[in-house]
């Protein structure tokens, strides 16, 4: 019974996740659109190392993909031990805030569904 519940929960979260993903995608696309139209002063690009605490491969790839589909971030590489991910950020005003967003918002969601 618990298994079924867990499964349903996951499915539910997955659906939520899909919408979240789409939202991120749309927002990020709009960001890009905005950036292209406006002057580039806003940008503060950089490449950041973010620790990863995901185990399953599905989770990892979902995470990496999600990062790429999120505004201003793009997965560039992952360490061979799957513990660190390198992200290209377009607006790196605050490095720690950026890492937190990745960890708390994205990784958390991924862990709920895939890990």
């Amino acid at each position, binding site marked *: 019974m618990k298994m079924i519940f867990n499964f349903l929960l996951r499915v539910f979260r997955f659906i939520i996740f899909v919408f979240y993903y789409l939202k991120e995608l749309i927002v990020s696309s709009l960001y890009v659109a905005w950036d292209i139209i406006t002057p580039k002063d806003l940008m503060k690009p950089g490449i950041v190392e973010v620790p990863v605490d995901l185990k399953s*491969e599905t989770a*990892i*790839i979902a995470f990496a993909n999600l990062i790429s589909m999120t505004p201003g971030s793009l*997965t560039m*590489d*992952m*360490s*061979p031990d*799957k513990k660190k991910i390198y992200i290209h950020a377009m607006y790196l005003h605050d490095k720690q805030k950026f890492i937190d967003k990745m960890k708390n918002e994205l990784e958390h969601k991924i862990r709920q569904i895939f890990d």
Partner: protein
Amino acid sequence: MESIILQIAARHMRPLLIGLSLIVLYRGHNEPGGGFIGGLMFGAAYILYAMAFGVDRTQKSIFFNPINLTAVGLFIALISGMPALLLGDSFMTGEWYTFFQGTLMELKLGTPLLFDVGVYLTVAGMLMLVMFSLMEE
């Protein structure tokens, strides 16, 4: 140079591509697709795998020699022309048999389909061979 992300993606994509290739093969007679496109997909699955993991590991992950796959394909294509001979028709005449006929769907199998299977295997085998020969380090 390996990429862990690519490896994970390839591991997931391979069964997906193979499954899709089979579907494409089956419905090729009525929808876009067929043996050749299916075979290409099958080969593509392995090329992707080889790009992620290298040829050696790919080679270890399969249990058949691709040249035999090609030959089997050729043989099946050849065999598919034979039933017609047994039935008194000209070589390679399409012979059909309806297994199941309903209002929603029907299952009709015929020698042209078998022929397409042959095409599928041949192309798949060839692609794998090219990959093994060219992608070696």
